[in-house]
């Protein structure tokens, strides 16, 4: 990391803050200022930082990424049409981080569900602004994370999703973040805030899509707070251009007896890092973290998860799978903390990696810290290759090698893909995988 690199982002954030100082409410000015101060204090992480041991962010910090106002073109409409989920659920479209009203519809016709673009909500008065003041930065703390700090310093765009207590959202909320093809410096800093009231139900889909050859940087932060008995399913599909950079973190707080599921599919990016950090803030919660990363070329796909069992009788299930080809590298660092009071915790974590080439790499780093005694905790990590016996079995039946490899690789991934909610979304994931998994062309004849 160069000092000059950090300075660019600090200057950028100062200008950003100054331009908006007059119109912003006091708490927002403070939040942005605090973001700047924290970024200055922490700097960008280096490999000396345990949490960033495997990932070098110099390609990001060394480039002068800047928020860019893009005028959306015809291609964007086609992309939205292709990616839009069926149904009448709300859909917010962002291009290079900017909300595009013409392509969005906020009203999903569900009483008790309200969806706003963050920028809209920030200029409103009264209750909406108070909600934001209480929620933004509640889980995602700038003092703990330089990229969260950067996101806070540039906070303006994103979404606020609120579900009133007892509301069951029968349609998903879709947030579509498109990075524009030919913009080489675009920095997007979306902040998504989700507040699910007691006993409400919501499925939220965040799709980050981009087309080559853009070099962009998405620095996304999502905060989700679940009330007692709430059920939230969060899907993140990251399929940006393979020249793009993506850092994203999901911060979750779970109320009593709430159920949260996260499905992460990470396919794009030259360098992509996804973090999920969840805290059981009361007893009886259930948390499922599923992840699939598929790398080829020289992609670097990093995953960092942190499950905080702070209260008793909570259950967590975590499954992350990686498929890595060529010289790509996938990393998984999964931390589970069971605090002293969290008796009867039931936690299982598994990370499995499939290497398709000699030069591909996987780092699996489970990290369990158990401070309670009456708990069930298990974890496992594997790094392996395609099963030669299975391959031979398929070939002996007449399935050509490339097709057999595709079948087995696809089967490996299907455990995670199969758990993704919504058939239309699974179909999108399947299509992206179909294009990406090796042998795909021969295999899908």
């Amino acid at each position, binding site marked *: 990391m160069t000092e000059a690199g950090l300075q660019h982002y600090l200057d950028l954030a100062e200008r950003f803050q100054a331009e908006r100082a007059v119109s912003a409410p006091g708490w927002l000015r403070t939040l942005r200022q605090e973001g700047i101060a924290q970024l200055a204090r922490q700097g960008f992480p280096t490999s000396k930082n345990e949490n960033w041991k495997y990932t070098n962010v110099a390609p990001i910090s060394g480039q002068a990424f800047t928020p860019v106002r893009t005028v959306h073109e015809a291609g964007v409409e086609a992309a939205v049409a292709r990616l839009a989920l069926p149904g009448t659920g709300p859909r917010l479209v962002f291009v290079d981080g900017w909300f595009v009203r013409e392509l969005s519809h906020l009203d999903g016709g569900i009483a008790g569900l309200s969806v706003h673009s963050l920028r809209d909500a920030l200029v409103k008065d009264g209750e909406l602004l108070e909600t934001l003041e209480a929620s933004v930065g509640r889980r995602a703390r700038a003092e703990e994370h330089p990229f969260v700090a950067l996101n806070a310093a540039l906070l303006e765009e994103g979404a606020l999703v609120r579900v009133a207590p007892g509301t069951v959202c029968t349609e998903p909320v879709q947030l579509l973040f498109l990075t524009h093809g030919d913009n080489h410096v675009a920095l997007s800093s979306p902040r998504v805030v989700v507040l699910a009231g007691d006993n409400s139900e919501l499925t939220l889909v965040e799709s980050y899509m981009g087309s080559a050859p853009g070099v962009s940087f998405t620095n996304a932060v999502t905060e989700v707070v679940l009330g007692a008995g709430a059920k939230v399913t969060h899907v993140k599909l990251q399929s940006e251009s393979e020249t793009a950079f993506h850092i994203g973190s999901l911060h979750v707080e779970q109320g009593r007896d709430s159920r949260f599921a996260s499905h992460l599919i990470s396919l794009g990016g030259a360098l992509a890092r996804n973090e999920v950090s969840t805290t059981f803030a009361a007893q009886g919660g259930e948390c499922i973290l599923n992840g699939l990363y598929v790398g080829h070329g020289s992609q670097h796909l990093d995953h960092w998860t942190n499950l905080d069992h702070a209260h008793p009788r909570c259950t967590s299930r975590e499954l992350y799978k990686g498929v890595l080809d060529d010289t790509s590298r996938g990393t998984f660092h999964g931390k589970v903390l069971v605090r002293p009071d969290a008796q009867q915790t039931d936690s299982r974590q598994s990370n499995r990696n499939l290497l398709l080439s000699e030069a591909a790499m996987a780092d699996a780093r489970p990290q369990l810290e158990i401070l309670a005694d009456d708990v069930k905790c298990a974890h496992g990590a594997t790094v392996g290759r395609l*099963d030669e016996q299975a391959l031979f*079995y*398929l*070939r*002996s039946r*007449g399935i*050509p*090698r490339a097709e057999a490899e595709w079948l087995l690789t696809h*089967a490996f991934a*299907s455990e995670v893909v199969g758990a993704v909610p919504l058939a239309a979304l699974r179909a999108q994931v399947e299509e992206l995988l179909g294009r990406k998994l090796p042998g795909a062309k021969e295999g899908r004849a």
Partner: protein
Amino acid sequence: MKPLLSIKNLHVRVAGREVLKGIDLELMPGEVHAIMGPNGSGKSTLSQVLSGRETYEVLEGEVLFDGKNLLSMQPEDRAHAGVFMAFQYPVEIPGVGNLHFLRTALNARRRTEGKEELDAMDFLQLAREKSKLVELDPTFMQRSVNEGFSGGEKKRNEIFQMAVLEPKLAILDETDSGLDIDALRIVSGGINALRSAERSMLVITHYQRLLEYVVPDKVSVLAGGKIVRTGGRELALELEKKGYAWLGDGRTPGGKEARP
């Protein structure tokens, strides 16, 4: 008539050890030829070499199948040419549906034959019909390949696959192992139903039990990497009575004299 399969002086090494030490064998179209032998005699090595497993090294000899040099062909090409091996230990493949797997296999061969591929509906019809041969419950077709199948179900699935793929040569590698008497009857019934003048079978087995159901035209005994005796069905019965020691270990021709 020309033989369908012709093995000449086949020497094969596995993990540094010569396991097959000069096999000569001919199989005529429609013929069912049982290969019997004690454990470690090289029976399974023979079946694996014929189906194209790459962990075996051929030192010498040749194998002609339908006039083609079988040993130079990839496993999938052998399958397309009409070779099928029923595995002794069918492999479990989680995440790959049985029906999808088999349709992919059949269509891969149909492509090489210039035939139109079967769509899912047509294939399902075919699979349903063929599954009756071995009384395979149709729900098995929707499950992952062999995953969680019992020993008997796995073997029935092998014969079901053979029925769908309709090979010219079926190599049955210890298909009777791990079967109880009911399963043996069902599997044997399936095999017998698939016997025809155009389909040869190499039935590899340790016990003559299977041969009570699948009656062979010929029986050969493999011992110590060589075929030490070939005869008719009565040879199997004799082996059952006298045991393999009677024929020796193949180091001495004639066998009998080697172990009086």
